[in-house]
């Protein structure tokens, strides 16, 4: 079979764990796929590679299918990996006493991975939920890596909206790290969005799905199998399967897996309410999306996952 090129928006993110793990477990091969994983610095770069046709499938956040729908680019997700966004709001160590709630962020510097990214949207949404102006905090792009840690620890920013593994790194370095919101946990996400919120997914151009239904099917099945594996294994077992360069410090990695298991989907299915939640957040942040007639149902399909579900997990 032809090689399927999957563009990952940063393979170090736990949110894309199933994509990488499926490869490690041999699940793609099992379903007759020859897969090449290509690592990108962030989801939007991965997406551009797919829109441009140099990669076939994105392993990225579902929300991008909505942004692109507003740009007349028809993309659809066909298997969900995360049912929660996995984004957390972390207070700078040393600012714990000044910041007790989201409302306290007004007038503060808050780090996001990049202006205009999901973390940025998330912050603005949070602020507005508290009845504040979405622009009440000043946004600083700090990336997902060591820059964010440096900025936070040096007190250049008062809080940061970030993802794993940065959250776990910070937690490891600062015992008393305060997470104001942690959407790796169902409770926090539910209270914020009133539903699940679709995070990492495999999605691609509708044309590609139409042209390669078998491959989409096989991908969905491989991921679903992997999801089952994740939820039936201990974090240590999972860590044992991952390539060493994507683990770094094992203890921290296992810890972050533990904290993230809840966010990883068990079925791979998209919950309609979770898609609605994403659309709501996106519309809130972008007048362009709010103004566009978006056919939400066209941006995802459960057809392949459903077809794959009956297969027994190992």
């Amino acid at each position, binding site marked *: 079979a032809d090689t399927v090129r999957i563009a990952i928006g940063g393979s170090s993110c736990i949110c894309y764990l199933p994509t990488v793990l499926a490869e490690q477990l041999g699940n793609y091969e099992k379903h007759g796929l020859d897969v090449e994983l290509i690592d990108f610095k962030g989801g*939007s770069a991965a997406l551009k590679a797919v829109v441009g046709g140099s990669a076939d499938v994105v392993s990225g956040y579902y929300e991008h299918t909505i942004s692109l729908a507003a740009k007349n*680019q028809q993309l659809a997700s066909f298997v969900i990996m995360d049912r929660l966004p996995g984004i957390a709001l972390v207070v700078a160590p040393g600012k714990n006493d000044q910041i007790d709630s989201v409302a306290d962020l007004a007038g503060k510097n808050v780090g996001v991975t990049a202006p*205009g990214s999901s973390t940025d949207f998330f912050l603005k949404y949070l602020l507005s939920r508290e009845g504040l102006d979405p622009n009440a905090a000043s946004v600083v*792009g700090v990336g997902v*890596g060591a*820059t964010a840690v*440096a900025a936070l620890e040096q007190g*250049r920013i008062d809080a940061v909206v970030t993802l794993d593994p940065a959250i776990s790194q910070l937690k490891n370095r600062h015992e008393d790290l305060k997470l104001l919101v942690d959407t790796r946990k169902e409770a926090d996400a539910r209270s914020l969005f009133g539903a699940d919120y679709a995070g990492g997914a495999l999605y691609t151009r509708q044309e590609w799905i139409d042209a390669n239904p078998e491959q989409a099917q096989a991908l969905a099945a491989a991921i679903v199998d992997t999801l089952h594996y994740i939820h039936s294994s201990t974090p240590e077992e999972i860590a044992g399967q991952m390539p060493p360069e994507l683990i770094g410090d094992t203890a921290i990695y296992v810890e972050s897996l533990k904290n993230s298991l809840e966010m990883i989907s068990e079925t791979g299915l998209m919950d309609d309410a979770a898609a609605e939640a994403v659309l709501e957040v996106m519309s809130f942040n972008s007048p362009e999306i709010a103004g566009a007639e978006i056919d939400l149902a066209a941006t995802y399909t459960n057809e392949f996952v459903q077809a794959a579900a009956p297969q027994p997990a190992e």
Partner: protein
Amino acid sequence: MPRPVLLMLQILVAVFAIAFWWVLTRTSLFGDPSRIQFFFSTPMDVLNRIIAWFSSGQIWYHLWITLIEAALAFVIGTVAALILGFWLARRPRLAAVFDPYIKAANALPRVVLAPIFTLWFGLGIWSKVALGFTLVFFIVFFNVYQGVKEVNRTVLQNARMLGMSERQLLRHVYLPSALSWVFSSLHISIGFAVVGAVVGEYLGASAGLGYLIAQAEGMFDIAGVFAGMFVLSAFVLIIDWLVTLAERRLLIWQPDSDHHH
């Protein structure tokens, strides 16, 4: 070529380029325009965006930040490179010892160093200046170093025999002689200073053109990205023009290169 003719030809080139861009993104000659627009936007959209930025005045603040960063990186990088370049070029042994380290340092991917710059210089303009500095410095340094070595031998010997001290040699011989080398590297490094500032902002910042571009990119707003890059280019041309003015003044002694025939 008289200036107005030159200007007209230059504009003509722009008109052609824009026309091509328009055809590329507005007709289906080169494929599905909506997909191409996703990568290249369209001339009108970009123009509208630039107009919007300037008419709302929003751009000025960002432009100012980027200008400061690029200018500081340019000036500090150039001065440091001049000093180190002239100094090391006169101390060949020392230079030989440090040579591999300088070359190795030039090969470090600056993007990866961003966290360290943040650690040292914070998230404000200085970490961007540092990034720009690492680009400008090496470009100017290598040229200055070579420029000093290319000094005409007889002129140098004559100056020495006239009794010039090392300092006077620097001022009256090495510096003027290496000047066209320096200016060549300045023309290269202006662009890189701006790139450094913008990339720094792009990696982590709260203001500046790079920040605007990153924001636009995050929202798949390609018109915004292109608008940012055009503003950037315009801006570099202005700085370059100032450098060229300085160059003309300082290199007035050179014979016109004769381009006849």
